[in-house]
């Protein structure tokens, strides 16, 4: 049965609001190809209202002692544990990675929430008595204000709510998250849990936007810093633009990790490690390992093992616990990856002429 796509909201100042935009982006269930939700391209005014909500919430939140602030994080950790299955299901349904991969994506939220519970210790400063005769200096670490977090689609829980949010808010800042438009629902559910954990209104705000409106986050004078994960091209632009506007920036971008495979390696275990490293999360990890550099003397043996193990990987819907590899996140990205395979062929690779297995690769 087809579900009616859900019209998603944005959150500013603790309130979930309907966007006034007439532009919406399709969110898929990549396992079936159905559109399951529509994410608003929030208007410039709505993005500005989210920043304003973060600014309004900042003074009181920053003034709350760190040991009180982290009480919210302790409660959040318990809520994530309690809602683990539900969050895992939302995540694998919208992103397409398999059940265990999705569960790990959610648990990685708690990994940083737990670390950030140590902020009362981690952010305390240092001091020197009698640094010159009769003079003492104390150094404090202070929060800055509103941060912007611009999240990618490949880790819908871990990146916005693990990498970007816990340390940001535990240290007393507030944040406007721009959730990935293709996979915003996990992020939205996690924000509801933050609210349930007792987070004051406006400490975390969440929008989905097109690129034009996201640009406001890079230039607005009330945004003090930008944390970004995505492509190298966009990351370079964000670094340059936000820095030119006086903000601190961390922009994590593309990779092409290589593994060097030496002749004395444990062959089978190594081959299994390689399969996991390039096929895990359907290859959509910035720490995936899509290239191996192999000593020629063992290359044929390694390839034979890889072919064998790759054949054991079953394709299927993300939320089926038996699935070895889920689908690609959406149709556009499937085309992008498929085009790259064709490009490899165009660059001189002969094509295999093997027969086609059901649910698997041509070998």
């Amino acid at each position, binding site marked *: 049965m087809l579900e009616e796509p859900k019209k998603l909201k944005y959150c500013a100042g603790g309130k979930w609001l309907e966007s006034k935009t007439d532009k919406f982006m399709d969110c898929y269930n990549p396992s079936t190809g159905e559109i399951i939700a529509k994410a608003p391209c929030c208007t410039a005014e709505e993005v500005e209202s989210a920043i304003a909500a973060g600014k309004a919430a900042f003074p009181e939140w920053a003034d709350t002692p760190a040991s009180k602030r982290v009480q919210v994080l302790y409660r959040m950790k318990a809520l994530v544990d309690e809602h683990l299955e539900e969050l895992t299901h939302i995540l694998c349904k919208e992103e397409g990675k398999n059940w265990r991969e999705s569960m790990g994506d959610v648990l990685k939220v708690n990994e940083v929430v737990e670390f950030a519970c140590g902020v009362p210790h981690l952010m305390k400063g240092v001091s020197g008595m009698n640094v010159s005769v009769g003079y003492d200096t104390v150094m404090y670490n202070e929060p*800055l204000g509103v941060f912007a977090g611009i999240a990618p689609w490949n880790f819908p829980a871990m990146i916005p709510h693990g990498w970007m949010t816990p340390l940001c808010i535990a240290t007393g800042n507030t944040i406007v998250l721009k959730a990935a438009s293709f996979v915003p629902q996990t992020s939205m559910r996690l924000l509801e849990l933050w609210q349930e954990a007792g987070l004051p209104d406006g400490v975390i705000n969440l929008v989905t936007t097109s690129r034009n409106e996201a640009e406001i986050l890079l230039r607005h004078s009330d945004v003090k810093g930008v944390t970004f994960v995505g492509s190298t091209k966009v990351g370079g632009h964000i670094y340059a633009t936000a820095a030119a506007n006086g903000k601190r920036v961390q922009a994590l971008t593309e990779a092409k990790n290589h593994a060097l495979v030496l002749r004395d*390696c444990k062959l089978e275990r190594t081959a299994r490690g390689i399969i996991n*490293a390039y096929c895990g999360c359907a290859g959509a990890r910035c720490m995936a390992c899509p290239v191996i550099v192999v000593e020629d003397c063992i290359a044929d043996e390694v390839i034979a093992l890889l072919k064998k193990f790759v054949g054991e990987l079953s394709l299927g*819907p993300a939320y089926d616990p038996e699935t070895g590899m889920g689908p690609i996140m959406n149709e556009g990205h499937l085309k992008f990856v*498929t085009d790259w395979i064709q490009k*490899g062929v165009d660059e001189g690779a002969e094509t295999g002429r093997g027969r086609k297995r059901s*649910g698997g690769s041509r070998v």
Partner: protein
Amino acid sequence: MPKLVVDGRDPVVPGYENGFYLAPSIFDHVTEEMSVGREEIFGPVLCVKRVKNFEEGLAIMNASRFANGSVIYTQNGHYAREFSKRTHAGMVGINVGIPVPLGIFGFTGHKQSFFGDLHVMGMDGVRFFTEQKNVTATWFPEDAEACGEVDTWDGTISSMPVDSK
């Protein structure tokens, strides 16, 4: 000769014909001229580059403009150590295919995999979200004579000879 030895395009997943599926692919004998072996694809596509030895392999890896992670599979401690020291990547795996450090460390990509100074998570994460403020204080005794004179540096220098005025 480069070859697509496993072609994962257009797989059939019975019952889920409209899903966005792609099975794993493997290119063998990928050369440094081929962009498929250099650029991010973000899908289940493996490129195999064949080399004579450790040195040739390391040189190929360090020629990449990206430097998030790098991995070595070996039982040889000498090569593993040499690799950790000389690889350009910011996160290194020794027999670990996905060497993502836990959140108590941080995600430390290098080269064009990262723009900025302070990485996410770990102590860098704490510093990224905080700014330092230094407060310097001196307190005067009740006896005006004992307050001393105001020097041009007002006490905020440590190396001036005491008798130099």
